[in-house]
């Protein structure tokens, strides 16, 4: 086996480990659906009815569906670091890092697992959107594109979370920081209102928010069908993801020393 196949096979093994855990106990996946369902059913429906936010030719609930999807994946991903802290406290992380598998492949595997959870969220949220009659484009290629975006998106934020975990090192702090950064990320993005509606200072923050690019890509594929921004979205999201993966692969070392 050359080093690239070894890297890929290690990553897949770690992802498989997480997937098998989900298969044994999927309770967490289902409880994670409560929040996005509330956003769609209550927030979405109400704001659609009062037409408070102008979203061009699309109804507000159409506009917000990609945003809610991205938010729910963000939540899954940003708390991934807690799992790693848990594994460190238990001793499992030491064991994973003592295998001949490269550290980076372990990180990539874990973030891929976050992606798997993200895809599950996507399927369920789309199903809910269909049930409540949100009009979306369900073209096969577009849906596949959305899945790819979701996986990269989940990798991006779960690796960010692991970077935080390797500095914060305790579950309590991770809970705190998770709460503290998800909402600002969410509000300073185009998830629930267009960037053009924001005050200027917030707009200047939103352009540097990787969440905005994820939402934009999903929205282009599932709602508008206008792909002109996709290369930029892919570049920004991919860039952030690679950067975070790289840093996490180095910083994880601090957790076992």
């Amino acid at each position, binding site marked *: *086996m050359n080093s690239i196949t*070894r890297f890929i*096979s*290690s990553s897949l*093994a*770690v992802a*498989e*480990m997480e997937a*098998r*855990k989900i298969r*044994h*106990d999927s309770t967490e996946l289902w409880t994670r659906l409560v929040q996005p369902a509330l956003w769609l059913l209550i927030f979405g429906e109400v704001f659609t009815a009062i037409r408070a936010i102008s979203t061009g030719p699309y109804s507000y609930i159409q506009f917000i569906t990609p945003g809610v999807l991205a938010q729910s994946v963000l939540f899954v991903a940003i708390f991934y670091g807690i799992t790693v802290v848990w594994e460190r*406290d*238990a*001793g*499992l992380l*030491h*064991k*994973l*890092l*003592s*295998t*001949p*598998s*490269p550290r980076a492949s372990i990180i990539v595997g874990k973030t891929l697992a976050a992606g798997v959870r993200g895809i599950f969220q996507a399927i369920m949220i789309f199903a809910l959107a269909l049930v409540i009659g949100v009009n979306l484009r369900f073209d096969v290629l577009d849906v596949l594109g959305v899945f790819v975006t979701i996986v990269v998106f989940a990798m991006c934020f779960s690796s960010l979370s692991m970077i935080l975990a390797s500095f914060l*090192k*305790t*579950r*309590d702090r991770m809970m705190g920081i998770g709460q503290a950064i998800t909402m600002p990320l969410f509000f300073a993005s185009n998830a629930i209102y267009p960037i053009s509606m924001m005050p200027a200072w917030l707009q200047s923050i939103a352009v540097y928010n990787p969440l905005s690019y994820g939402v934009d890509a999903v929205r282009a594929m599932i709602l508008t069908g206008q792909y002109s921004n996709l290369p930029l979205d892919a570049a920004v999201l991919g860039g952030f993801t690679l950067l975070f993966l790289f840093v996490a692969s180095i910083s994880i070392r601090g957790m*076992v*020393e």
Partner: protein
Amino acid sequence: MDAISFKVEEGEIFGLLGPNGAGKTTVIKMIIGLTRPTAGTMQICGIDALSSSSQVRQMMGYVPQAISADGDLTGYENLLIFSKLFYVQRKDRQPRIKEALQWMELTDRADDLVKHYSGGMMRRLEIAEAIVSRPRVLFLDEPSIGLDPASKRQVWKHIKRLNGELNMTVLITTHDMAEADELCSRIAIMNHGRFVASGTPSELKHGMGGDVVTVRLSSKPDLALPLELGKSLHVLEDSIDILTSDGETAIPRIASFYKENGFQVLSMSLNKPTLDDVFLKYAKVRIEEEESYSQARQSRRSFMRHAR
């Protein structure tokens, strides 16, 4: 950690002994590449461990002190994932897993979630995980810590079999003298990050030079012992351990010494030195006392970790 130097021969069971905080775990972590030494060299089976740590890790199995099997997976799944992370070839995986389960006597529980295992079974599963990759060297950090006496014996039996029948070189850390005596062909005693003694268990015991006389007294023996009677090893509330060159003749002399000084001698016993006495001599703490002290410290430490 201070500068240390040691060599483990192929096929032996080598024990690193020491009180908590002596640096045993740090030594293992350095060898498997979790912590980097600030200076020095390290070779494992002739390969430089510092420059090619991935290659070295391929040859090693490691069982950390804490519980490291994943409770949310079955025993079989734990083995499967680790065989993949160690790049065991696809065709070898199933036979190796089956064999490791049989070796560790876990075959009938292979499909149960590990969180339902007992402590001893978890330990055996962790050792099974470490051997699916057929390591040449096995590192066991406190293999029997927290196990009841029966499970402890079972784990020892398995470690001996791995060493004897699969010819695996084993390095264990422990602060359990019985474990060291039972398993190790050679041991090194560590204290404060350095080696204070090493040799085979019997060499170390003979090296004590004499017998240990334990005297129980009516009150605390707080007066200095004349050198010709022996060396005071350890003083407790109402007893004293004395290391002496010839126990049989020393007993009456010791007894009259205490009587003359107004003590009432309740009992005396003569023993050959145990590893425990060796440890006592070098580490200056008796293991049982260390135990309660270190437990208190350990719980405090985990509390601190949360607070930090």
